[in-house]
């Protein structure tokens, strides 16, 4: 009798821990992989139909750690003349005229203890799509990789990239 109680208690304890871990795991991955953006920018048109290279707008990807979002000025270079009657472009023009930057919602983010450089990865010959997926085919950008350490390391192993911890951890 006492034995069964002990066994049950132990099982209950481990079961509860398992549930807790699963719960945290669930919450962790629940962040929206495709957040709604302030302007419904279609990558399908720009990167898809028009075949603009990624670095045309994300100019810093090849030059620095951050890929960066383009300034509104860059959009207006074309959209002063192109498709000015569309609702989303009107929104863009308002931003430009009021000198308000567009607050894009972040889709990909690494934790602050990670050193990650777009430049190094592009110089190593990776395509943007290796990590970001087929953005040209996405109406609203969706996160396709979970950016967990195992995911980074599997690629680093396969491509014989450095595996020393301080390569990425800071």
């Amino acid at each position, binding site marked *: 009798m006492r034995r069964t109680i002990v066994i049950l208690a132990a099982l209950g304890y481990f079961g509860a821990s398992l549930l807790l871990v699963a719960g945290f795991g669930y919450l962790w991955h629940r962040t929206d992989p495709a957040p709604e953006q302030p302007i419904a920018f279609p990558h399908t048109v720009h990167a898809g139909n028009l075949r603009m290279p990624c670095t045309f707008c994300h100019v810093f990807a090849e030059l620095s*750690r951050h890929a960066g979002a383009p300034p509104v000025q860059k959009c207006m270079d074309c959209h002063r003349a192109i498709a000015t009657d569309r609702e989303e472009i009107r929104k863009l023009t308002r931003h430009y005229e009021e000198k308000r930057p567009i607050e894009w919602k972040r889709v990909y983010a690494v*934790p*602050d*203890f990670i*050193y990650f*450089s777009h*430049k*190094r990865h592009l*110089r190593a010959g990776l395509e943007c799509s290796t990590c970001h997926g087929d953005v040209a085919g996405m109406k609203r950008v969706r996160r396709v990789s979970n950016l967990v350490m195992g995911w980074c390391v599997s690629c680093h192993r396969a491509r014989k990239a450095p595996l*020393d*911890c*301080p*390569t990425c*951890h*800071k």
Partner: protein
Amino acid sequence: MKWGMVIDLQKCTGCGECVAACKRENNVAIVEPKESAMGRTMLWMDMLTIYEGEYPRLRVRQIPRPCMHCDHPPCAKVCPVRATYINEEGIVAQIYPQCIGCRYCMAACPYTVKSFNWYKPEWSPGIRNTANPDVSVRPVGVVEKCTFCVHRRQKAKEQAKSEARELREDEYQPACAEGCPTGAIVFGDLENSRHRVNHLAHSPRATRLLEDLGTEPKVVYLKEGD
């Protein structure tokens, strides 16, 4: 490649610039006086003060003390989760997300260079804005220590790789060496004969702290003359 540091005690004036530079560079938390009295002061680079003799003939020695980055690090041997280990460039790294906060390494370190995060670090608003974005702020419950400013190596290495060349000596210097006004702290590759540390480490004045423990520290002190 083996990164190491030479501290010339003859040149060192004990001004404490290395301590301050390190603290700002690495976002090391500022601890309240009450906590500090409990031995919770957080300094990656400390200034050891040694008093010799008595008042009229008192002599004060100031010894800057970073992490020794031992070749046989006792901290790495006791770490149960490999949060601290020595990498192939001789840097004893501390990986914060891996650390479980058991503090075995703090007990093992004969130089007491490691500090534990008892609290979430807090800065006054003005100082918070000057935090270094290249160094992560450590969470509660992990051990931290001098990393030889490994984030500077990340940056310098990236630049060197992009230009397809070797890392130059002056490109990767930790904040303490860079800040030292008398040039007492020299940093570089101990195995590279073109680096200054290589010559200085073989000077007859060279000595290491607690050498008899066999930890083989890579921080070399040059003794003062009399």
